[in-house]
């Protein structure tokens, strides 16, 4: 079976960097929550989790280096965007209902 060319070329070093980054971001999100910033709590938490997900998808799941999965590169963000739009529109509806 044909191999994913990236998998035979990749160096383990990049995984170590990503792992350190993910642990650092976990520490950052715990620290941010301890700072008591009520208005910014959710946006900061979502931004950090989103960055972690971005790192995992691109490096651990190799989507960044995979030339054959261009369609998935498009579909994955679209699926996330649909989720954000659905949740966002619900709040807009809630805002204008009363």
């Amino acid at each position: 079976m044909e191999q994913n060319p990236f998998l035979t070329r990749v160096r383990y070093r990049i995984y170590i960097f990503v792992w350190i980054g993910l642990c650092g971001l976990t520490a950052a999100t715990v620290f941010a929550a301890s700072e008591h910033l009520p208005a910014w709590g959710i946006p900061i938490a979502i931004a950090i989790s989103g960055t972690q997900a971005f790192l995992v998808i691109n490096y651990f799941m190799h989507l960044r280096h995979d030339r054959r999965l261009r369609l998935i590169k498009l579909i994955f963000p679209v699926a996330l965007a649909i989720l954000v739009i659905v949740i966002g529109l619900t709040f807009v509806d809630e805002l204008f209902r009363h």
Partner: protein
Amino acid sequence: MRKETETDMVRHTEQRSVGYTGTRIGMWLFLISEILLFGGVFFLYAVYRYKLSADFKTASGELNLAIGTGNTLILITSSFFITIAVAALPKGNRTLSIVALIVTMLLGLVFLFNKYFEWTAEFHRGFYPDSAKLLTRSTGEVLFFGLYFTITGLHGLHLFIGICVVAVMLILITRGRLTEDHFVPLENAGLYWHLVDIIWMFIFPLFYLIS
């Protein structure tokens, strides 16, 4: 039987290539459907947190932040090891792949053990769905714990399935069914494991870190 001509070989290679990409596209589509499954619960969470934010904050204070943070780091590390396992096999490093898969499984089990102790402690303190103590608290707190047990339970179930899948991959590698030329099931198992990790990255701040 006639000898395989060059054209036949090219055709076979092309078919295998399509099969390889197709198998992974199938896996990615399944993962996207999983996002929408968990998305539904996060959607509920968003609505109730918006309406009952003070109650959610109080209820979140009842969770064990140390276990939550520890489990996050455990799951991130397990994702790192399964990436090593997936990358090592195509390079022909079968032993490293096996060791990394065993470590991944062990970390997954440690996560579930922690979750077991965490839930047990919460049950002892009277926090479980429909408990007499919980029902005396505010609506927001009841909803928070309902969502917490639903989503962490669903996530735990996914992780348990992930551990079983990794165990199967381990058997397939040791039996020589997965090799440096045929490893797409291992790659897909890795993709599934990472998704379970990503979902936890969102569960953790939304339930444990409400400031």
